[in-house]
């Protein structure tokens, strides 16, 4: 288990000679993604801010997707899930994903409902 590492990322597009090299490669990738996030956060391009997809700004969707990409590489290469048996990997990854998606779905819908109650109700909140 411990001594065999899968030495390619991006589905084999980027191959490394040793585990150490792979670690530095992943660091370079994660740093690049963070730099893109920060640059977008500071510039806030108008096209991305003004486009709405599923009730959220396109820019925020990009941030969330990039975050998930980073999370994937941290879990797969730093926490070496890539080298674990697939049953263990799936048990670890899909359990929280399922529960968290459910939680987010419930809470955000409820929050939106409360927002509308505050907005359309007859009680003043701004005073």
């Amino acid at each position, binding site marked *: *288990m*411990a*001594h065999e590492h899968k030495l390619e990322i991006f589905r084999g597009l980027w191959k490394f000679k040793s*585990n*150490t090299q792979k*670690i*530095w490669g992943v*660091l370079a990738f*994660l*740093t690049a993604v*963070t*730099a893109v*996030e*920060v640059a977008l*956060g*500071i510039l806030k391009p108008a096209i991305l*801010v003004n486009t709405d997809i599923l009730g959220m700004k396109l820019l*925020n969707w990009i*941030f*969330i997707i*990039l*975050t998930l990409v*980073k*999370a994937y590489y*941290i*879990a797969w*290469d*730093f*926490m*070496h899930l890539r080298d*674990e*048996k697939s*049953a*263990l990997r799936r*048990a*670890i990854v899909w*359990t*929280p994903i399922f*529960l*968290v998606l459910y*939680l*987010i779905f419930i*809470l*955000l819908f*409820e*929050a*939106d409902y*409360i*927002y509308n109650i*505050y*907005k359309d109700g007859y009680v*003043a*909140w*701004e*005073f």
Partner: protein
Amino acid sequence: MDTTVTSGEEEKVWDGGNRPLGASYGKLMMWFFLVSDALTFSGFLASYGFSRFKFIETWPIADEVFTHVPFFHGNFPMYYVAFMTFILIMSSVTMVLAVDAGHRMQKTKVVWYMFLTIIGGAIFVGSQAWEWATFIKGDYGALETKGGRILQFVNADTGERAALADFAKTIPEDRVNHERKNGVWYYEGESLPSFSMNEVVAGFSANPNILIRTETINEEGEKTLLTREASLKKIKDATLVVEGANLVRNEYGSRLFADFFFFITGFHGFHVFSGVLINIVIFFNVILGTYERRGHYEMVEKVGLYWHFVDLVWVFVFTFFYLV
């Protein structure tokens, strides 16, 4: 007892030392802990999302709250948090390198990489403490209305935020802080802000170039700026001078924003802090040669899993607190 009578093969199964899913007991238990901890953090972040969607029109804009970098003056949104993120990712890298060196039984390398990881963690915790101190101190000051809404001030000539000190008048008046010893029920009053309500209102009336900014976010995604007439009317609703942040009120806007900031970054900071402590324990174990004698460095790998998890959580906190 029964196992001693049964066949040798079953004895092996029940005697322990099994590795289901190809992972040792310790590693499996670490993963159990990490999955449950991930659910705890998800609960916090989802409830943050809940409160934010509930007050979607009035939530503070993170870029305007976290604008400071130590030793530099000026407006630098996000730079420092990006630096903190990089530090944490970097310390994750030295941790993987330590684990990797451990697999190859290179003790000196493990020691050095563990040392660098601890340093990275310490820098991160220190940065977070600084971030908290800056957040608690506040920068411009604001007024709170009867309904608990925050009114901030903007200089109409420059369009920049105006601090209370820029326009408030100093009126000779007696401001008494209620102390514990004078109270019937031995409660202390809240500490007095630098300016009283009267001083802020007098200063505001005397400076026609100061406008009020409300919490409401307009179509352009910015906070609504009132006209001078509307500002003069609005300031009559104010009841309190607010400087900085605590768990009850804060000058940045929605009260829940500060509560979640303290709670989520605090819980994460506590994880980093305990991670540093565990790393130090393992660091000394490595130096003493404990794992050399044991024949494997799996303990470094386990503590590494925890350390990467802390990094993983920060990636999400960074996105949902500072970016989105």
